[in-house]
């Protein structure tokens, strides 16, 4: 009787080991962590840092932006800023529209967070973000000018009557936790807002798609701590399309 029990116990343990092995070394890497490959899934499950294995890791530019968000940048606009910004912003109307709502695929600036616009202008000027016309435009702006333009655009009403129709796609609503993708709204204002994350609702679809693609390929690299590059890289092209269409208000 004792021998039989012992035999069954050993068999049970071995069976559990085999089942566990199949689950852990075959099924999980194949089905759930399929984007990483077997070896990468095993190593990361063991706690090996990604950089050791260099699995899908890309060399990340060390400095992504020299703009440091301080409490000074977050102060409300000084009274004269909006007016000065309005005069300066006349030269921006050619692409960004007379009311900050663009007629083309340049981003809408009306109602955007001031610190976002300021940071992008600083990055254009320093070369951290590159664009033929914006780099030129930003070069002629002083720090005060940038604050004023940013405060002016922040004071404008966001695109009127903009309704987000349809259900949010999965990547926007839930993100993809298995791939370290947070829901977009957790940073971009729908759910919560983290500093210097832009407001996305109403931006042109083509612009959003172009920027996500640029982040994914490292062509754009001025995001703080490479957060957007990491996320965009892990998004599939379909998810990028869906997110862009959703925030642009199109299906």
């Amino acid at each position, binding site marked *: 009787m004792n021998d039989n029990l012992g035999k069954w116990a050993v068999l049970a343990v071995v069976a559990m080991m085999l089942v566990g092995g199949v689950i852990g070394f075959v099924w999980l890497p194949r089905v759930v962590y399929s984007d990483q490959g077997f070896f990468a899934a095993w190593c990361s499950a063991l706690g090996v840092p990604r950089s050791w294995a260099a699995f899908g890791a890309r060399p990340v530019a060390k400095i992504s932006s020299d703009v440091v968000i301080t409490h000074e940048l977050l102060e409300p606009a000084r009274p*004269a800023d909006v*007016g000065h910004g309005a005069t300066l912003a006349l030269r921006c109307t050619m692409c960004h529209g007379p009311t900050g709502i663009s007629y083309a695929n340049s981003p809408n600036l009306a109602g955007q967070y001031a610190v976002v616009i300021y940071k992008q202008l600083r990055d254009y000027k320093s070369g951290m973000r590159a664009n033929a016309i914006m780099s030129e435009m930003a070069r002629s702006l002083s720090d005060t000018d940038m604050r004023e333009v940013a405060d002016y655009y922040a004071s404008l009403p966001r695109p009127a009557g903009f309704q987000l129709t349809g259900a949010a796609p999965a990547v926007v609503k839930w993100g993809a936790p298995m791939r370290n993708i947070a829901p977009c709204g957790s940073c971009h204002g729908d759910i919560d807002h983290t500093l210097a994350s832009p407001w996305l609702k109403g931006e042109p679809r083509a612009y959003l798609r172009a920027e996500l693609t640029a982040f994914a390929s490292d062509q754009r690299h001025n995001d703080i701590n490479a957060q957007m590059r990491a996320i965009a890289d892990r998004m599939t092209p379909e998810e990028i399309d869906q997110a862009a269409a959703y925030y642009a208000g199109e299906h």
Partner: protein
Amino acid sequence: MMRNVSYRLMRKSALATAVLVALCIGASHAQQQPASAPSAFPGAQESLEQTVKRGEYLAQAGDCVACHTKHDGQPFAGGFPMPTPFGTLYSPNITPDAEYGIGKWSADDFYHMLHTGHRRDGSFIYPVMPFPAYTKVTRADSDAIFMYLRSVKPIPEPNRENGLRFPYDNRSLLLGWRELFFHEGEYRPDSKHNDEWNRGGYLVEGLGHCGTCHTAINKLGGNEDRKAYAGGLIPMQNWYAPSLTSNKEAGLGEWSLEEIVEFLRAGASQRGAVYGPMSEVVHNSLQYLSDADLRAMAVYLKDLPSRHETPPPGMLPGAAQLSAAVLAHGHAIYKAQCQSCHLGNGVGQPPGYPPLANNQSIEMQSAVNPIRMVLNGGYAPQTETNPRPYGMPPFAQILSDADIAAVVTYIRVSWGNHGQPVTTAEVNTLRSAPLLD
């Protein structure tokens, strides 16, 4: 005792219920009553062609085209956005298109709309359409305008839905507004005055709807009678419509009839030039009116009782202090930038370069207009009597807030002008005022 109390209570509640029910019935009745009066054949002694021509003239007097045409759109096809503090509205298509315009309307429908402020389905019209003024239009004139509109090119442009915020998107709430600000009725000639005065009154109060801008608009979006024509800040556009009363300081008290007529017809005169939203009015409407009609309007305006100017909201008396430094600074800028056209003594070279001395627009209580003129400049509108207008350049991009405040202060107090100084904060705020729609 209890029985008496409860009986009184019952009676009161019955009365209250009856009042409420009456109001509800009244509201729904007011909303849903369609036009049903039999139509009268318009002007049997006038040919159709003459009626259409007369209707065109009256439509110009009413300036229908300004709001019912969008920027790159066909005339009268609607779609023009009108931002208000309650949201943005879009004008409807009033071409004779059968599906989207007034193609299926009758003259009765049109008159009913103009006169009572109801749409064809019986619902209330938002008062951004100035029916409180157009109610004064006679039946014959309404028919003529209708015949003219029926003769323009039909455009199948669908009507755009208004973008009003809750609860303003509910038309039935307009019942309250109408109670306060709408007095239905055609213009009733005043027997104490002559025909010319009454014709002027008909045009100013009715088709011209001058009071819609030149009377202060309150928070409910209505004009108050006691402030009629005493001037007011136009919401959203941020221009100040000056007082038209016979007040000598703020209004037209010192203008002669000829000066008023010239001003309205040409857009520029010895007294000053039109600018801002008035440029559009002269360009699209007033330049087409006959001399007799313009004179009649001038007669009526000159006879308006003198009223103190309505100060713009938020204006603090004596907010800015006058200092020698500011005046000297303003004088220096005036010499460098303004003197070559407006001359050292401020008399200008009218009609091309208007005078600044003794100019109502410069010295009135509201500083909005002179500040905006310096910021944005402007060309007088091209009219038949002023076919090659002179213009003023914008200075927003080369003068700072302090510069502009100094020079505007300087012109408001010099040469006998009785204006108040302006602050840099006022200048700064107006930099972001919208330039066009």
